[in-house]
């Protein structure tokens, strides 16, 4: 019984930190500047340390959450994502006047939602995690009150997200009606996998996941929401919430019985192929950086889905998916973080520096943020010596090793196309004359710290990926 509580200690830190921040915001009016920020950082950090340091045993609370090393690894990753988001948004939130308790508290609650979704072994916990994440994000996206675009993005994400949650929930209900099992793995080991009711439920669950990971054809909300949302929140949304759903999907894929897998595999194959093709082709014609990053993140999810196909059996695919999730988290956070750093000086009326023409010669105007953006984009394109190269290599190697030749070829063609639009942005950054320089705003200390750590992580994972791969091998064994 005691070990039950040790397993959910990271969750308790996140929830407690969030509640503490709300209480401080409500009752401590003349607090020193930065109290909420420090509290949020400490809570997320403590949760990460706890997740990495202590090992609980088995599946506590009647098998509803998992305390295995898989979920603890992901909790630590989500805490890392939220720490970097907090660092990037510190100055950004101050400038745009939304650095109240609701911003910091909701970041922690969204992280808790991700942790629950990735660690769930029971449909109820999965649903509650997804909802906690989504409801926090509805508010976080619309949190910049004087921005019309953020308002519109919030309402769009709310409508699409709540409809997707309802579809996911109805799918879970149908699965329960046809199998009588609430455990995720148990319900996917149904003896009668051709039962139409079961197939309907499975289809709706996959549709719900498709909306949340923004797979084609469920991706239409993504570019609008990313364009309207504040840049640090868009980074948080595109990394944390998607990786949480990918982790849950990985659990579904590896836990399904062989006859059920025969039904799921072609669906995932089709979604992956469509996502890679449509994501990359649409990204080619974008002239706004946040929309371009949105389509790029759609395409990246296609590559991850491709390796998910190969993640049954010897685990090469699963290891590639986890490895790429980590790298993807840092490079996408880096790209959105750079956008938020160069948007600090923008006047209140304009949300972010977004149009590509505003990025002309930015590499000289903002050397550090420009370099971060360039390295993140190179890594997203999968060029050496960045972590993205090793990650993409592992993904394609896993797909080819498991005899998914056709999808691997589609993926490689997509990756080659994608190099064009990433390089296009880098060319704009460095090879065009500078526009009239805007006066610099003091970026604070937190932004540059996040900038440097992401820079180091991307390069480090490109040069020395061995230690992370070893950790992942331990998780999967």
């Amino acid at each position, binding site marked *: 019984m005691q070990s039950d509580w040790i397993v959910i200690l990271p969750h308790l830190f996140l929830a407690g930190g969030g509640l503490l921040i709300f209480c401080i915001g409500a009752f401590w009016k003349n607090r020193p500047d930065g109290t909420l920020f420090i509290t949020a950082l400490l809570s997320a950090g403590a949760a990460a340390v706890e997740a990495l340091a202590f090992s609980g045993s088995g599946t506590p609370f009647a098998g509803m959450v998992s305390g295995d090393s898989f979920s603890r690894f992901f909790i630590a990753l989500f805490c890392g994502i939220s720490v970097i988001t907090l660092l990037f948004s510190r100055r950004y939130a101050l400038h745009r006047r939304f650095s109240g308790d609701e911003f910091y508290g909701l970041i922690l609650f969204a992280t808790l939602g991700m942790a629950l979704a990735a660690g769930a072994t029971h449909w*109820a916990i999965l649903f509650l995690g997804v909802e906690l994440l989504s409801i926090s994000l*509805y508010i976080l996206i619309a949190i910049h009150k004087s921005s019309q675009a953020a308002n*519109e993005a919030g309402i769009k994400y709310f409508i699409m997200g709540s409809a997707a949650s309802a579809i996911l929930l109805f799918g879970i*209900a149908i699965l329960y009606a046809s199998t009588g099992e609430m455990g995720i793995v148990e319900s996917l080991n149904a003896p009668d996998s051709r039962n139409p009711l079961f197939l309907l439920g499975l289809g709706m669950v996959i549709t719900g996941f498709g909306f949340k990971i923004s797979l084609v054809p469920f991706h239409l909300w993504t570019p609008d929401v990313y364009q309207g949302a504040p840049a640090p929140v868009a980074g948080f949304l595109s990394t944390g919430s998607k990786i949480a759903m990918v982790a849950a999907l990985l659990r579904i894929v590896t836990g399904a019985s062989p006859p059920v897998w025969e039904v799921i595999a072609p669906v995932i194959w089709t979604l992956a192929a469509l996502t890679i093709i449509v994501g990359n082709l649409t990204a080619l014609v974008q002239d706004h950086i946040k*929309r371009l990053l949105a389509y790029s993140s759609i395409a990246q999810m296609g590559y991850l889905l491709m390796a998910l196909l190969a993640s049954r059996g010897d685990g090469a695919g699963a290891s590639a998916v986890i490895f790429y999730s980590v790298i993807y988290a840092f490079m996408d956070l880096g790209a959105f973080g750079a956008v938020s750093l160069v948007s600090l000086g923008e006047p209140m009326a304009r949300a972010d520096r977004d149009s590509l023409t505003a990025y002309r010669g930015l590499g000289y105007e903002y050397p550090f943020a420009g370099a971060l953006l360039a390295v993140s984009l190179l890594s997203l394109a999968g060029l050496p010596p960045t972590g993205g190269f090793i990650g993409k290599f592992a993904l394609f190697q896993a797909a080819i090793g498991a005899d998914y030749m056709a999808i691997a070829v589609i993926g490689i063609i997509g990756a080659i196309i994608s190099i064009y639009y990433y390089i296009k942005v880098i060319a704009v950054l460095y090879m065009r004359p500078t526009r009239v320089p805007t006066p610099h705003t003091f970026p604070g200390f937190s932004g540059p710290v996040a900038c440097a750590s992401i820079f180091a992580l991307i390069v480090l994972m490109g040069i020395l990926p061995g230690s992370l791969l070893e950790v992942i091998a331990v998780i999967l064994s």
Partner: protein
Amino acid sequence: MAVYGQVILLGMMLFVIGGACVLIRRNLIMILIGVEIMLNAAGIVFIAASLRWGALDGQAFVIFIMAVAAAEVAVGLALIVYCQGRSGSINADTYNTLKG
């Protein structure tokens, strides 16, 4: 079994009605109501399935669904009120400035 099958069918019909409401109506409040109908349709299916399997976990889930639906409505209505205050319209078609 037969009775539970009919209740599940009722849940599916409600879900389709809610989904149609989300897709067809352009008023944000009606869209929110459509989502609520979809969530509660899932609740009905859970209750029927719970009776079918003679287990309580489906019914316990319904209580969570109610709490989640209430939280979602609270946030959704706040967003809609805020939209109304900004642009004076709760027609979903007026929110189309983000394009690429």
